[in-house]
C-alpha cells in the first residue's frame, strides 16, 4: 500500500485510500520540524515526484524505505560514493534498512542537484521517433562487454585441452563476422540516406526536414505504431509534471534546509575543494631565441611560434576540452546545406573524434603486438633447430 505512494504517478494524487488525501498545502502545514514524521514525508513525496522512471538509484532509494534488501542498500551506498557523496552517516547506516530515512532524503536531494537528476532522466528516456545513433563509444569501454568473463565453456569438450587450430578457426570466423557487419552497415546507410532524401520536405518540423525510418513506416502502417503514440503522450504528461515541479522547487529546497537544522557539528569542518588549476610554464628556449634575434629573425620567430601553437592545437584541445564531450544517442538528420545550428552535433566532429580514437587504439594494439613479438623472439631462441623468419 505504501509502495503505491511511491509509485510515482503523474497526477500527483494519492491512490491509497488509507492515507489522508493530501494536497501540497496540507503537507506544508504538517509539523515538518518533526522530520521523522514518516507520513508527512511520504505524502510530500507523493506530490513531488511525478516521474515513474526506472532509473536505478532514485527508485531503489525509495524502495529501500519499504523493502529492506541488503544488496540494494549496498548498491545505493556504492553509487552515492561513486558520485562523491561524502556524508559518513549515510555509510554507517545498517544494511537491513531499519533506520536512516532522513539520511536517504538528504542524499537524494543532494543527488537531485548534483546530477541534474530529473533532467537527465527525461533526456535519457526520451521517446525515439527517429534514426538514433550513439555519438560516443562509451559502450565499448565497459569491461564486461569485452572478454568472455562469463565462462561459457566451449562445446569442444570437457577435456581441458584446446587445439590451437580451433582458436584460429574461431578467430577467423570472428574477423569474417566483422567484415559482414561492415557490409551490412554500409547497406543500411545507403537505405537510410535514400529514405531521408526521398522524404525531404515532408516533415512538419522544419528543423528535421525529412522523415526517419520509423516515421515513414508510420505513414505506411499507422496501426503498428499505436504504442509509439501512447509513449509520446505519456512523455508529454511527464514534461508537464516537470514544469509543475519547477514551480514548486522553492518549497522543496526550503523544506530541505529546514531538515538540516538539527545536524550535529555542522560547521565544524571547513573543507576546500581542489579545483584543477591551469598551469602555465614559460617558454624556455632562451638561447635559441637570442640567437635568432641576433640574426634578426625575431619576426620570423614570432611567426614560427604561432604556427607551432596551431600545430599543437589539436593536442591542447584534447587535454583541456572547452566543451563537454558528446554523449548519448542523437537523431540522424540529413542536411545538405549547412545552417549554423548550435544545438546540433555535426557528423564531421564525431568523425574526427572517432578517427583519433581509432588511431589511439591501433597504436595500443601495435604496442601489444610488439611486446608479444619480443617475448616470442626470446622463446624462439629456446627452440632447437628452428629459425623463425617473421613476415
Amino acid at each position: 500500500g505504501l509502495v503505491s505512494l511511491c509509485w510515482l504517478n503523474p497526477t500527483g494524487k494519492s491512490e491509497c485510500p488509507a492515507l489522508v488525501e493530501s494536497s501540497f498545502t496540507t503537507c506544508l502545514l504538517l509539523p515538518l520540524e518533526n522530520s521523522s514524521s514518516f507520513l508527512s514525508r511520504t505524502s510530500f513525496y507523493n506530490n513531488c515526484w511525478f516521474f515513474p522512471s526506472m532509473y536505478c538509484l532514485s527508485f531503489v532509494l525509495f524502495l529501500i524505505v519499504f523493502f529492506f534488501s541488503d544488496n540494494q542498500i549496498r548498491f545505493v551506498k556504492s553509487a552515492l560514493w561513486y558520485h562523491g557523496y561524502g556524508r559518513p552517516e549515510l555509510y554507517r547506516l545498517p544494511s537491513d534498512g531499519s533506520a536512516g530515512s532522513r539520511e536517504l532524503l538528504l542524499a537524494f536531494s543532494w543527488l537531485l542537484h548534483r546530477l541534474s537528476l530529473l533532467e537527465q532522466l527525461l533526456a535519457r528516456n526520451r521517446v525515439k521517433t527517429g534514426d538514433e545513433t550513439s555519438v560516443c563509444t562509451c559502450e565499448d569501454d565497459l569491461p564486461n562487454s569485452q572478454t568472455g568473463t562469463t565462462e561459457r565453456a566451449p562445446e569442444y569438450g570437457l577435456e581441458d585441452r584446446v587445439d590451437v587450430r580451433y582458436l584460429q578457426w574461431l578467430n577467423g570466423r570472428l574477423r569474417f563476422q566483422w567484415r559482414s557487419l561492415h557490409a551490412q552497415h554500409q547497406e543500411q546507410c545507403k537505405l537510410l540516406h535514400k529514405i531521408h532524401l526521398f522524404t525531404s520536405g515532408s516533415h512538419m518540423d522544419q528543423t528535421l526536414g525529412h522523415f526517419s525510418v520509423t516515421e515513414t513506416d508510420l505513414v505506411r502502417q499507422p496501426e503498428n505504431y499505436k504504442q509509439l503514440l501512447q509513449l509520446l503522450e505519456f512523455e508529454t504528461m511527464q514534461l508537464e509534471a516537470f514544469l509543475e515541479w519547477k514551480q514548486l522547487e522553492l518549497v522543496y529546497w526550503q523544506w530541505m534546509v529546514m531538515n538540516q537544522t538539527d545536524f550535529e557539528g555542522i560547521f565544524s569542518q571547513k573543507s576546500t575543494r581542489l579545483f584543477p588549476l591551469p598551469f602555465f610554464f614559460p617558454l624556455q628556449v632562451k638561447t635559441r631565441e637570442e640567437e635568432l634575434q641576433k640574426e634578426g629573425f625575431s619576426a620570423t620567430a614570432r611567426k614560427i611560434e604561432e604556427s607551432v601553437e596551431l600545430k599543437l592545437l589539436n593536442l591542447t584541445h584534447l587535454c583541456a576540452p572547452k566543451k563537454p564531450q558528446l554523449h548519448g544517442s542523437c537523431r540522424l538528420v540529413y542536411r545538405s546545406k549547412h545552417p549554423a545550428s548550435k544545438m546540433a552535433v555535426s557528423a564531421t566532429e564525431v568523425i574526427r573524434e572517432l578517427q583519433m580514437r581509432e588511431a589511439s587504439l591501433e597504436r595500443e594494439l601495435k604496442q601489444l603486438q610488439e611486446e608479444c613479438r619480443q617475448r616470442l623472439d626470446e622463446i624462439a631462441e629456446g627452440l632447437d633447430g628452428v629459425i623463425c623468419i617473421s613476415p
Partner: protein
Amino acid sequence: PHAACGLRPAVRAGRRWGVTGRPVGRRVADGAGPCRVAAALAAALGEGAERRRELEQRTARSRALLRCWGSEEDEQSQPEAGSSSGHENRPSPKELEELELLNRALEKALKVRKSILKSPLEAQGATGEKSAGEGPTPKNAEEQQVPVPVEDVPENTKVRAVSKKPASLKKPSPYQLRAPYRTDPDVKKLQRKAPARCVSQGSRTAGKSSSKGVACKQGRSHRTVICASDREVPAPAEPQKIPGLSRSALNEQQSFSVGDSAGGKNSVAAGKRLSDGGRKNCGFLGESSKKEDPTTEGALGRSTSPRTVTLQEKGCQLKLPLPYRKAYSRNSRAWERCRLCQTSADAAAARNRFIERIQTTFCSTMLAFSPAEIEKELKVLQDVPSLLSQYVEAEPADHPTLEREYESLLTLEGLQTTVSQCLHKLQLLRTAMESQMRLRPDCAGDIGSCSPACVPPRGQMCDSAGILAVPLLCYSSFQELRDLFALKLQVSMLHQEIALQKVMMAELLPVLESRLYPEASAAQLYRAIYTQLCEGGKRFPVLVRDELVD
C-alpha cells in the same frame, strides 16, 4: 633443391596431423588458459551475431519501405543462413567431411608434386613457389595464382563441387608449373567479367598457401568458383541481392573452414586472408550493390502498376497521420518549454544553501575528485599518449635550417608542457583515487555496475538547457554517413581486438614459456601462436629447420 627445404618440414607436419580428418594433435597440455581464450572468442562471436540480427531487422524494415508499398509482403527474404550457421562453435560434420576429402586430395597432390619435381620443370616449379612463398604477399605473387584457379571456373560452376576436385586435380597441375605468372588473355577476359572483388578474393587467398602446392590452389579455385557463381546472384533486383549476399557469405564461410583445414596451418592463413581481404571487398560489395541499385530502383518504379507507389516518387508529398502530428507537436512544445524553464532565483538560493551546508558535513577526503569525475578525466586523457607519440615521432632528428630547428624546439617544448600538465593531473587523480578507495563502502557487485554507460557531465558544466535540447546529429553527405558508421564499427572492433589480445597474451604465452607441450609439435604451436599474437592471425612467419650441418 635447398630452396624448397624450408617447406618440407611443414609439409611433413601437415601430412602428419591432417590425415584423420578430425582436428587432432597439437594439443596444449595446460588447457585452462586456452579454454578462456576460446570462451572469449565464442562470446565475441555471440555478440557479433546479436548485432547482425538487430541490424538485419532494421535493414529489412528500411528495405521494405523503399519497395513499392501497394503490393503485399510476399517477398520471402531468405533466412540469414550466414548468421545462423555462425552460431555453432565447432566445425560442422559436413565441414569435417570436406576436410577429410581435401586432406586426401592433398596427399595425392603431394605425390604428384614429388614426381613432377623430379622432372626438368623442377627449377621453374621451385621459383614459382618461392616467389609465391609466405611472407607479406607481393602483388605479382597474387596475380600468379589467379589465372590458374580461374581456369577451373568454366568447368566447375557448381558451388558444391568438392567431390569433383580430386578428379580435376591432375589437369591444372601441369599448367600451373609451367608459367604461372603469364596471364592468359582468355583468363583476363574472365577476370574482367567477374567483378574485381572476386579476383581480389581469389588472389588474396592465393598468397599464403602456395607452399602447399596444388591442393591449396585447388582449394582456392573452390573459392573463386564461389565468387563466379556469387557474381551471378546479385544481378537481379536489389531485394534479392541481400539473400544472395548472405548465401555467398555462407559459402565463403564454409569454404573457409574447408580450405582452412585442408592444408593445415597454411590454408588456415589463406582462409584468414580471404576474410581479411574483406574490408575493401565489403566496401566494394556495398558499392556494387549501390551501383546496381539505380537500375533496380528505376525498374521498380517503371514496372509497378499505377496504383502502387514507391517512396521515390511520392516521398516528398507524404504526410504523417493527424494523431501523430498532434502528439508530436504537443510533445515538442512541451520539450521546448521545459528547456527554457529556469529555476527561480529564490529556489536556486535555497538549493545552494542546502548544498553548502550538507557539503560541510562531508569527509574532507571526499571533496577531491569523486570517482565519477576521475573516470571522466581519465576518459579525456585517454587519447593523449597516442597523439603525443605521433607528434614526437613527426619531429625529425636533423634540421636543415635554423628556423626549422627553432620550430622543432618550440614544438617539443609545447609537448613537454602538455606532458607535465597531464602528468600532474594524473598524479592528482591518483591520490584522489587512493583516498576514495579507502573510504569505499562494500560494493554488492563490481564497481563497474555503479557507473552507467555515458556518465553525464556534472550539472554545472552542462546546463539544463543543454540537457533538454533536441539531440540531433547532422550529416551533410552520403559519404559522411558511411564514414561515420564505418569508423564506429572499426573502433568497436579495435576495442574487442585489444581485449582479446590481452587475454591471449595472458593465456598463450605461458604455454610456450612453460614448455608443457609435446615436443614434436613445438614448431607448429609456436608458429600458430606467433601468427595469432603478432600478426592478428593474418600472416604467418616462416619456420626454417636449421638442417645445415656446420
